[in-house]
């Protein structure tokens, strides 16, 4: 695995350390500019587009960024990320509805659940490499799915419905989509910046070393398994943040959130956007959610088109949208 590993994600990510002049915060200028542009677009967008749709895009963009931390920067393909997204969704919904927690604590409970789950499954999954790692994570996610189907508090096929959005910090009423939108924007951008920080820290450099050549990273004295586990847990936690937020936005947690097709979707978003790029998963999530939105009435065609996109991306377009774009402008994105 390790020898072939670099092909998984690498063409997309030439070492970003040297490239671009750094701004005062240490972030290359063009990255800072893009984050500011995202913020500006995010602030303006709800005046032109339907806020609920935008919130869906942001939740999935954060989910895909969390997934990309694992696949794009560490070279680990988890095929069961719906487990963390979905379990956080269930726990947040339960916390808000049954325990009556305010939304910020409900989401944090979801994050905590996803983190613990990520720790347990991650510790087991990193005992195998490569293709087995993907199968193990998928199998455990299916176990979480069956648990969600049978557990008394998840509501089986119905899920947890009519989750109250509540009062943020006790005084901001989130009932209005418009108010909630800006909260979700803050969560999503905050999460993405945190992931950006992790990727570009010394810790992130070690992750890239593991992705490129695991045996070499080991021989340099890094405890590779600890790095892998830490990344797995971080990725699960951010996926949980996305899932918990999604439960508050849609006031619903359901089996869709933990189903294997959700795990497949997040892989697809990352793949089409460009794995191992900072902004690729955001673009990928926007593309896929938009597509689902327009094709929702065509039933199984959504699945078929997703399958076709998978095939086309793998055969012809492995670098993804942002991967191609960054080659064109010769700056890592």
């Amino acid at each position, binding site marked *: 695995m390790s020898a072939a590993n670099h092909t998984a994600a690498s063409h997309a990510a030439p070492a970003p350390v040297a490239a671009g002049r750094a701004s005062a915060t240490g972030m290359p200028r063009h990255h800072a500019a893009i984050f500011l542009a995202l913020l500006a677009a995010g602030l303006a967008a709800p005046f032109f587009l339907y806020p609920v749709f935008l919130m869906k895009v942001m939740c999935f963009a954060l989910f895909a960024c969390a997934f990309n931390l694992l696949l794009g920067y560490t070279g680990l393909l988890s*095929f069961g990320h719906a487990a963390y997204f979905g379990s956080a969704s269930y726990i947040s919904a339960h916390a808000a509805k049954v325990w009556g927690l305010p939304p910020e604590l409900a989401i944090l409970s979801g994050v905590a659940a996803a983190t613990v789950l990520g720790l347990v499954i991650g510790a087991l999954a990193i005992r*195998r490499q490569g*293709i087995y790692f993907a199968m193990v994570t998928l199998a455990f996610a299916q176990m979480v799915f069956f648990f969600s189907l049978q557990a008394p508090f998840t509501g089986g096929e119905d899920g947890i419905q009519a989750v109250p959005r509540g009062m943020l910090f006790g005084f901001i009423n989130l009932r209005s989509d418009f108010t909630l939108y800006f909260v979700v924007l803050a969560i999503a951008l905050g999460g993405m910046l945190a992931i950006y920080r992790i990727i570009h820290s010394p810790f992130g450099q070690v992750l890239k070393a593991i992705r490129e050549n695991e045996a070499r990273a080991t021989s340099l004295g890094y405890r590779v398994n600890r790095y892998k586990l830490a990344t797995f847990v971080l990725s699960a936690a951010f996926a949980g943040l996305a899932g918990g937020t999604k439960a508050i936005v849609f006031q619903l947690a359901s089996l869709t959130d933990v189903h294997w097709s959700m795990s*497949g979707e997040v892989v697809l978003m990352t793949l089409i956007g460009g794995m191992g790029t900072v902004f690729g998963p955001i673009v990928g999530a926007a593309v896929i959610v938009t597509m689902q939105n327009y094709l929702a009435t065509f*039933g199984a065609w959504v*699945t078929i088109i997703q*399958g076709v996109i*998978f095939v086309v991306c793998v055969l012809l377009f492995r670098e993804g949208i942002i991967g191609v774009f960054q080659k064109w402008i010769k700056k890592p994105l």
Partner: protein
Amino acid sequence: MFELLGIPPQALFGQLLLGLINGSFYAILSLGLAVIFGLLNIINFAHGAQYMLGAFVAWMLLNYLGIGYWWALLIVPIVVGAFGIVLERLMIARLYHLDHLYGLLLTFGLALIIQGLLRNQYGISGLPYSIPPQLAGGQNLGFMFLPNYRGWVVVASLAVCVATWFVIEKTRLGAYLRAATENPTLVGAFGINVPRMITLTYGFGVALAAFAGVLAAPVYSVNPNMGADLIIVVFAVVVIGGMGSILGSIVTGFGLGLVEGLTKVFYPEASSVVIFVIMAIVLLVKPAGLFGRAA
């Protein structure tokens, strides 16, 4: 009648038989995955879809062409296997120089397409496929009632598994195959057409899945989703057994089916997750799998 731990024997043996039938499908499918992985180094995510396709082609043969079960057992693996060969030549063959993960993603996409197309055409309610008249009815064994068809499924799967094991471990063709798994370059240097062998191996693995699909058609209803959930369990079976050994795949498949059946008798709530729990234990105790070699 005697009772075992408070369970009537009919219930116990009935569930064991069901477990054995599930185990037959686990065994054939994990065998196919192992054979494909050995030579192609990819995990065939479309294996579940190809199994489902086998059941559907059998149903189509019966309903559109009037071709019955016994001919379907022969024709379906050939048709679906040929379809697999086309997929391998057109798509999968382009990925051998890349990371294994791309093979997984490509075949996942193919599975989505196949499932989606059939779901569009036939819905998800499931189509009936009746048991062939020669195998209708059953035997009273005294301690339980054995439906003939279920007995046949177990016998036929065992026969196919053993035949595959024999071909791979005991014949000259199998020796080439094993050699190419170890070192394809060297085998090619001896004048054996390795790319063609890879293509035929993929076709054979797919044909195995399709054969299992035909066997399954009268047991479960023919349904576009029948392969998707099954393949995830088979992945767990493969992780537990390890893909290094043909016999290991067969034993693990049947064994886990039986364990699942027993769980259904004694603690039904856990029956859907017991295989995953066993996987967790195996990962803790023997990460390479019961029959696997350390990577």
